[in-house]
């Protein structure tokens, strides 16, 4: 089984650390990349692509120095190398307009406001992983225990 990558971007180190702890239970099936800026994330994306590592989910903060989260996700949305990757905006303070832009232009799959709850973020990440695995057409059986069941049923019905 190939490990799925989850890329977390937030300019605050302590937020990344908190995310890492909350998502720890996925360790057996996932590997994590942590980045403190959008620029750094872009370097990591190039590496992932070069090494053909499947990137399942991006968890991205909105307000960051340099390129902000929504700008990054809009660019990422147009990146053909990661067309199946699910995008997830995790933000402390996004205006109504930012959110609309994120949905319309970056086509984010999920949006959560900080502070988050562990159960909540785990469920969302599982849903997104399931969507990724099924839409790429990976062997879902090997990831069964971390897949979101209801989402999986939808894919398996047909």
């Amino acid at each position, binding site marked *: 089984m190939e490990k799925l990558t989850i890329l977390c971007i937030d300019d605050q180190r302590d937020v990344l650390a908190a995310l890492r702890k909350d998502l720890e239970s996925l360790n057996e099936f996932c590997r994590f990349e942590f980045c403190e800026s959008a620029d750094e994330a872009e370097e990591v994306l190039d590496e992932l692509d070069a090494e053909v590592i499947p990137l399942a989910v991006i968890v991205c903060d909105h307000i960051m120095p340099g390129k902000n989260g929504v700008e990054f996700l809009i660019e990422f949305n147009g990146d053909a190398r990661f067309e199946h990757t699910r995008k997830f905006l995790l933000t402390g303070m996004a205006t109504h307009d930012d959110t609309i832009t994120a949905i319309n232009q970056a086509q984010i799959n999920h949006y959560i406001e900080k502070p988050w709850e562990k159960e909540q973020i785990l469920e969302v990440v599982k849903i997104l992983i399931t969507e990724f695995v099924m839409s790429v057409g990976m062997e879902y059986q090997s990831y069964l225990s971390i897949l979101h*069941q209801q989402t999986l*049923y*939808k894919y*398996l019905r*047909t």
Partner: protein
Amino acid sequence: MREKLKFVIASALPLIILNIPTEFIPIQGLSIVEHRLIAIFVMALLFWVLEPVPVFATSVFVIFLELIMISDKSFVLFKEAAGTVNFGVVLSYKEIMATFASPIILLFLGGFFLAMAATKYQLDINLARVFLKPFGTKPAFVLLGLMIVTAVFSMFMSNTATTAMMLAIISPVLALFEKGDRGRVAFALGIPFAANIGGIGTPIGTPPNIIAMKYLTGESVISFGTWMCFSVPLVLILLTFAWLLLLVLHKPQTPSINVAIKGKFRKNWQSLIVYVTFTLTILLWLFDFLHGMNSYIVAMIPVTVFSMTKIITTQDLKRINWDVLWLVSGGIALGMGLEKSGLVGHLIESIPFASFHPLFILFLATIITIIMATFMSNTATANLLIPIMAVLATSLPGMAQYGGTRLVVLAVGFACSLAMALPVSTPPNAMAHASGYIETSEMMKAGTIISGVGILGVYTMLFVLKQVGFF
């Protein structure tokens, strides 16, 4: 790491077998072709058990190896010994390749078309709603209803898709159960068990049935309708038993359950075509003795109708479970090799089967089947065991009086579907286990009991069939 190790083990052993001199193998009169086939068989066995690659890939590999090693158009290096006394009988490459499109495969394809169209036009979910209604809201009866609906659907749809549909229906309800209500377990187990059991109900219910059908030819032939005549009662009995067992083990405490399914029967012309074709196909399968078309030809009706009416589109076609079809094809090719090369005959001669009582052999075969199917793919188990048992049945002198090929093939075929003790036993089990409502131990307990009782049920059914003169 473990994947690689599995791959190495599964490849190394067959290679060793392939490279030891033929004379060293303690089987009387073994030909070179048969020797190679043993290597292929061992390879298939290990690959299917350890699964370093998906099971369908192993099937493709089996077919490929047969083509290059033991066909009439094999690779030049494998033809060097051709013409020598003990080279043996090669297979026709056309026949090997034809396994991809054998009538049995097309019968299954017909089943896929029916299921896809039904799902696409929400026939399945609407039927589920109607069927479930009479069962009310008492949890015990809702469970029975769900199990019956699941079983009936899995007779025509894949067990996996049926389970996915039913779990999707029941999951929101289960989430409302109070913590500590053991009833949740009953529901989460009832659906996969019913799907497994229901698969027995028709020849197209599950791939092992298809493989069994393949060997029920000539004088042993069984029609679609005949199959259902004895398998549906068996399904109902096992289902009732499973229901009672689950109620005893995990009695639901919640006073009532309300399974809400949204929707209405669709009324556009495509839907009507789906309803009519669905009904017609099943009726034609059941009453093949009236119209003369066998079940394979009837299977082409939904394929044709749905294609012509664009109910199944080009895009839909791409979503056919080709892996299941190829898995079965590989099994047929392997069986064909075992049979035509004479390997099974030689094998049986080398083991003193005749000294055992035929019924003991039957018992042994079903036990081996159920153990294998518990740990590996049911279809792969059928692929490996049914061809051998089919030949064994004809060559054992004592077997004929108990029912011969029919008896053995049906027993082994049914046994494949009765393995449900572990999450890895079947995809429905895995899915239900992943729902998080059940412990492996709970599945093991109930699953083992049902497997055991199921085997007894099969024996009883076979006994009854013998009594009524079916064999």
